[in-house]
């Protein structure tokens, strides 16, 4: 397969995601609205009682915004996009029409991932822009992030949403069912992950929780979500993230290659 065809396939998969208006609206709402609400509420609180509530922006606001975007709502948006990319062709019945072109099924699977990442990161970038806007607009007398922190924050935003999105593409391609994939991934993200992270008796087994591993790459301390923080080395976190990616992308590719179309 030539680079030109790969680019065309990426463009086609991105088109499918871009035109999926219903999903896209939910993705934007999930990624942007909580950040807007966070800064708005904090700004109102500060203006009503400046002694009790610190300004909404500055580095504390940046940290809160990053936590919200990268550990909670950004990944939910990433799940919606990843699942759409992973199941869109199969659920529309179009997958077999792509298979009968003779193009390798692995190529069909592979083109979903960059398209999903492109859509996911477009939204994440807008979300990060909002975080920065709130951080600087409502900083008042607080310190604001320097250039390095802003760049690192951006990298972390792309990493945390991108990994979840890629895992969602793989998982959704494995299940081929949109409702099942969304339910399972959001359930894992919102319920199971924090629950497991909070069960300290599980010890190092908790290292395997993706959101905990991802949180280790944050440039500011944001914990692992819902108050729990699992201690692990940067190397362990890297292995965990790589393992999640490898396992689910491999499973998605295997299912796409072997399923009856």
């Amino acid at each position: 397969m030539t680079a030109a065809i790969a680019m065309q396939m990426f463009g086609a998969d991105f088109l499918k995601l871009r035109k999926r208006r219903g999903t896209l609206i939910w993705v934007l709402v999930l990624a942007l609205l909580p950040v807007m609400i966070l800064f708005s509420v904090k700004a109102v609180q500060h203006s009503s009682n400046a002694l009790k509530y610190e300004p909404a922006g500055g580095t504390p606001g940046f940290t809160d915004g990053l936590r919200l975007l990268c550990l909670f709502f950004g990944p939910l948006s990433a799940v919606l996009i990843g699942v759409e990319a992973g199941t869109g062709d199969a659920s529309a019945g179009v997958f077999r029409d792509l298979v009968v072109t003779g193009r390798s099924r692995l190529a069909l699977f592979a083109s979903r991932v960059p398209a999903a990442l492109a859509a996911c990161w477009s939204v994440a970038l807008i979300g990060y822009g909002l975080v920065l806007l709130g951080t600087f607009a409502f900083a008042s007398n607080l310190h604001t992030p320097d250039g390095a922190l802003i760049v690192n924050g951006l990298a972390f935003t792309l990493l945390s949403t991108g990994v979840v999105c890629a895992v969602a593409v793989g998982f959704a391609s494995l299940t081929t069912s949109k409702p099942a994939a969304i339910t399972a991934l959001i359930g894992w993200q919102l319920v199971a992950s924090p629950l497991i992270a909070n069960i300290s008796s599980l010890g190092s087994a908790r290292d395997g929780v993706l959101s905990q591993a991802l949180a280790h790459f944050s440039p500011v301390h944001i914990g692992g979500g819902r108050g729990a923080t699992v201690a692990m080395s940067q190397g362990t976190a890297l292995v965990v993230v790589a393992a999640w990616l490898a396992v689910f992308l491999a499973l998605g590719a295997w299912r796409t290659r072997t399923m009856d179309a």
Partner: protein
Amino acid sequence: MQAERAIETSGLTKRFGERTAVDGVDLLVPRGSAFGFLGPNGAGKTTTIRMLLGLTHASAGQMSVLGHPVPAERATALQRVGAIVEDPCFHPYLSGRENLRVVAAVRGPEAAKRIAPALARVGLSERADDKVKQYSQGMRQRLGVARCLLADPLLLILDEPTNGLDPGGIQEFREMIRAMVEQEGRTVFLSSHLLDEVEKICDAAAIVDRGKIITQGPIAELAEGGSRHELILGVDDVELALGALAASELVREARRSDEGIRVILSGTPRDAAQINAMLVRAGVGVARLEPVRHSLEQRFLQITSRLDAPVERQEVQA
């Protein structure tokens, strides 16, 4: 060098657990023809097509498409194949043109250039930018054909293509298929349970029942079934004619009918001329001599109604 057969299968078999959906199918589809794959619902037509296209694996047997063995050279084989399997499906929230762009992207750069001509060919240029969810069933079928044309196909595989079309749409569709075969030299492999459709569109056909090919060959020969040939005679003296016919070795049976005399020939329809000459020599005035055209429907019903009988294999040279 082009292979002589567009599709060739040998012993093609598909099992789903204990059930055998396709049972040792030997199929020969000549190039440049419209070939019908005729059988009742559940006969194994779609499963056979899905195996040919690599949508599902065969349990046993060999197959080749446009001379390339499948699945070994599936990618090459399918480069010049367009197919509609069951109902044509699309992303409903994309326009017709965007749906074609999606498939063209997978096929390669040349396919993208064929989008506009393909839409024009099926008469969808004006509605190409409407969302597919606003299309009628007939328009979706036509868009499905347009999608096939992106491959500039040497072979079109169409599974029940007239499902959901109104009579006008069916007629239009038949004309389009015939034009593809006669004017463009493409091969069309058309699966259907509609006898009329196959008889009107196709040059040759295979009849499949319970996963087995019962017979295949040119439509006319299939309709005749390779068995008896009949004539209807209109004569001025029926008694004299019956007497002459009874004495002839060319005639197996002759009897009165509403139309005159019905004659079952011992040999081939080419003997009709000799029978005419023989009757004239016997002093019988022959006003009408007409071969009885057996319809494919009669033959199809004759074959597929033998549901409890062992399946008889019969092959006619395609």
